[in-house]
C-alpha cells in the first residue's frame, strides 16, 4: 500500500511546489519558539518535580517537540484539538501559558484543572481543547465527534488528535479510524511513534507499521520524520486542508523517539544506549536550529533569551499560586449550563492573512 513521505520544505518559501503550505521567516521563528518553550517548560517542571513540588508521577515529551509543534501549527483558530501527554508544545501553541501548566503539575488552584486533575491530563476549553483521559487512545473517538459536529454544520473546521504507537493496538483506535473513514470526517490523526509504549517496543505491539492500515480504512496514511518540525507541519497542513475541503481523515505517522523515561520514575533500562545516542544526534531543536542558522534569518539568541525570561516569570507566577480549597473538592460533578468552547491561538501567518483579506 502506497504511503507517501513528506519531505522537509526547502527554506526559500518562493520555491515551493504549489501544494505546499508556505512558511514565512516569522513562522519559522514561531516553530522554533514553541519547541524551545516546550522544552524549557518541561525542564522547569522536572526541576520542580525533583524539588518535591509535583505530587504523584511526572511525564514529559522530551525529544518529541517537533511533532506537537509542527502538527498543531497547521491548525486554524476555530479548529479543535485533543492533545496527548507527550505534546505540551501543542497546548502552548494554542495559547496555554507555561505558568498554568506548571501550576497544573503542582496541583495548584491556578492550574488548568484547579488541582482536580494532574500531569498532562488537561485541555483548555477556552482555547478549543478537550483534555485527554488516561485511557488510551480514548480521545480518538472524541475527536471524531468534534469532527462530526463540524461536518453536520458544514463548517470548514478540523479536529486533530494525537496518540502513541502502543495505542494503535487498542480497539478504540480501530473504531475511531473506521468511523472516521465511513463518515469521511474532517479529522487528522497524528500517530506519534516514539518507539516504545512505556517499556514495550513496537515489535510487541504490532507486526506491520500501523501507517499501512490507513488505506484499509479508506484514507491516506502519511509517514514523516517526526524530528523535522517542517516535515510534520507540511504533512499536517495538507491533511487539514484535505479535511476542510471534505476530503476526510488522514493518518500521519511521525517517527520520533521518547528521550526520557515513560515517567520520571522510569530509568529506561530497556532502551539500548546506542539507540538513545543515535536519536540524540537527531534532536529536533538542534537540527532545526542548524537549518535556521544556515538561513540566517532568525535571531536565535534573542529567541532563547525571550523564552528563558518568559519561563522565569511564569515559574514565579506558578509558585505563587495557592493549593486548592478542600471545601471545593466535592462540588461541580454535574454541569448546570451548556458547554462553551473558545478558539485557540493560531500563530501560522496564513490565518492572519486570511483574516485581513476577509
Amino acid at each position: 500500500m502506497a504511503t507517501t513521505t513528506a519531505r522537509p520544505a526547502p527554506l526559500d518559501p518562493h520555491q515551493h511546489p504549489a501544494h505546499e503550505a508556505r512558511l514565512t521567516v516569522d513562522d519559522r521563528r514561531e516553530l522554533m519558539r514553541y519547541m524551545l518553550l516546550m522544552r524549557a517548560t518541561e525542564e522547569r517542571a522536572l526541576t520542580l518535580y525533583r524539588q518535591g513540588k509535583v505530587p504523584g508521577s511526572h511525564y514529559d515529551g522530551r525529544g518529541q517537540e517537533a511533532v506537537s509543534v509542527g502538527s498543531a501549527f497547521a491548525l486554524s483558530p476555530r479548529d479543535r484539538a485533543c492533545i496527548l501527554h507527550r505534546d505540551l508544545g501543542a497546548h502552548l501553541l494554542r495559547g496555554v501559558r507555561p505558568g498554568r501548566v506548571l501550576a497544573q503539575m503542582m496541583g495548584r488552584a491556578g492550574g488548568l484543572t484547579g488541582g482536580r486533575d494532574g500531569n498532562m491530563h488537561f485541555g483548555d476549553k477556552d482555547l478549543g481543547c478537550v483534555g485527554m483521559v488516561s485511557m488510551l487512545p480514548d480521545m480518538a473517538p472524541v475527536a471524531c465527534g468534534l469532527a462530526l459536529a463540524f461536518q453536520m454544520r458544514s463548517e470548514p473546521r478540523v479536529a486533530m488528535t494525537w496518540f502513541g504507537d502502543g495505542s494503535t493496538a487498542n480497539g478504540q483506535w480501530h473504531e475511531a479510524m473506521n468511523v472516521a473513514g465511513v463518515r469521511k470526517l474532517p479529522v487528522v490523526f497524528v500517530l506519534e511513534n516514539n518507539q516504545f509504549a512505556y517499556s514495550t517496543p513496537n515489535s510487541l505491539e504490532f507486526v506491520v507499521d500501523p501507517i499501512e492500515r490507513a488505506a484499509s480504512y479508506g484514507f491516506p496514511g502519511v509517514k514523516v520524520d517526526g524530528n523535522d518540525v517542517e516535515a510534520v507541519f507540511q504533512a499536517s497542513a495538507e491533511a487539514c486542508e484535505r479535511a476542510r475541503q471534505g476530503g476526510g481523515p488522514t493518518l500521519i505517522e511521525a517517527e520520533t523517539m521518547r528521550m526520557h523515561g515513560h515517567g520520571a520514575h522510569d530509568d529506561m533500562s530497556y532502551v539500548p544506549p546506542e539507540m538513545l545516542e543515535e536519536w540524540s544526534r537527531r534532536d529536533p531543536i538542534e537540527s532545526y536550529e542548524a537549518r535556521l542558522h544556515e538561513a540566517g534569518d532568525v535571531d536565535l539568541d534573542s529567541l532563547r533569551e525571550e523564552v528563558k525570561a518568559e519561563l522565569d516569570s511564569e515559574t514565579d507566577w506558578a509558585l505563587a499560586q495557592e493549593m486548592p480549597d478542600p471545601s471545593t473538592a466535592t462540588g461541580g460533578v454535574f454541569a448546570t449550563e451548556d458547554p462553551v468552547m473558545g478558539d485557540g491561538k493560531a500563530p501560522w501567518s496564513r490565518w492572519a492573512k486570511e483574516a485581513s483579506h476577509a
Partner: protein
Amino acid sequence: MPEITYLEAISDGLREEMRHDSSVFCMGQDIGEYGGAFKVTDGFFEEFGADRVWDTPLAENAMVGAAVGAAVEGLRPVCEMQFADFIACGFDQLVNVAGKMYYRQGLAVPMVVRLPSGGGFSGGPFHSQNPEAWFLQSPGLKVVAPSTAEDAKGLLASAIRDPNPVLYLEHKNLYRRIKGDVAEGRYETPMGELGVAREGTDLTVVSYGAMVHTALEATEDIDGASIEVLDLRTLCPLDRDGILESVRKTSKVVVLHEATRSCGVGAEVCSLIAEEAFEDLDGPVVRVTAPDVPIPFSPPLERAVLPQVDDVKEACRELLAY
C-alpha cells in the same frame, strides 16, 4: 390527550425534541432506514435524514466517544444501544470520558444514551440486563428510568435538555404493554423527583421501571392494607428526601427492583433508610430483587429469577405482620 404506548411516547418525545432543536441528533445501530431494533426511530430517517439519524457501525465505544465530542461542540446526541446490555461495550467512554469531563475541566457533556433494558420475554442473559447500578457507582452520570408513558416522554425531554450525560433506561417489557394519556407537544418531567404511584400509610414499596407496575398489582389489595408505591423515576440523583418522607409516614419499607441484588439500587435505598430513618422504622428494610445470577432464557427459569407479583405480595404481608 391521546392514549399511546410507552414506546410511542419515547418516539414522540424524541421526535419533538429533534423538530424543535436542530442540534439534537440520533446515533445507533439500525436506527436509520430500519427505524431501530424496537422501531423507536421509525420514520425518523425519512423526516430528519441520514445525518441526524446515523446508522452507526457496530462500535459502542466509538458511538459514545463521538457523542462526547459532538456534545462539547454544541450538539445534543442521543445514542441508542440496541440492547442495554451492550453498554458494557461502551463502558469506558461513558464512565471515564463522559462522566468525569465536567468535574475535571468544567466542560459540560449534554448527551443521552438510551438503554432498552430489562427482561420478562425470554431475552436471555444478554438481552435482559438492568445495568443501572453500575452507573450510580460512576460519578458524573445521571440515570433515569421511567415507568409510565407520560414520564417516558417527559424524562426523555429533560434528559436531552440536561447539560450532563444521562442514561435513559427504557424497559423493553413496558414498550407495548403500558399505555397512557400523553400530552402532545413538548413538556419535561423534572429529573430528581420521585413520583407517588399510589398513596398509602401502612407500608412503602420503593421501585422504578417495570417493577412499579408489579408493585401496584401486588399491593392492590393485601388484606386491605394501605400501601404506598413510590416510583423513583430518577435513580441519579436520587430523591432522598422523597424516599425518607414516605418512610417516616409508613415506617415499613420494601425495596423492589428487577436488577440483581448485590450493590443494586435497592442496596443504596436500603442504606439511605437505615442511616437516615432508623428511628422511624417499625421493621427491617426488605429487598425484593433478582438474585445474583445471569437472567436465564427459558420461561420457567426466567420467572424464577425475576421478581414476580407473588414475591412482592409475600414480602409485604410478612412485613405488615411484623
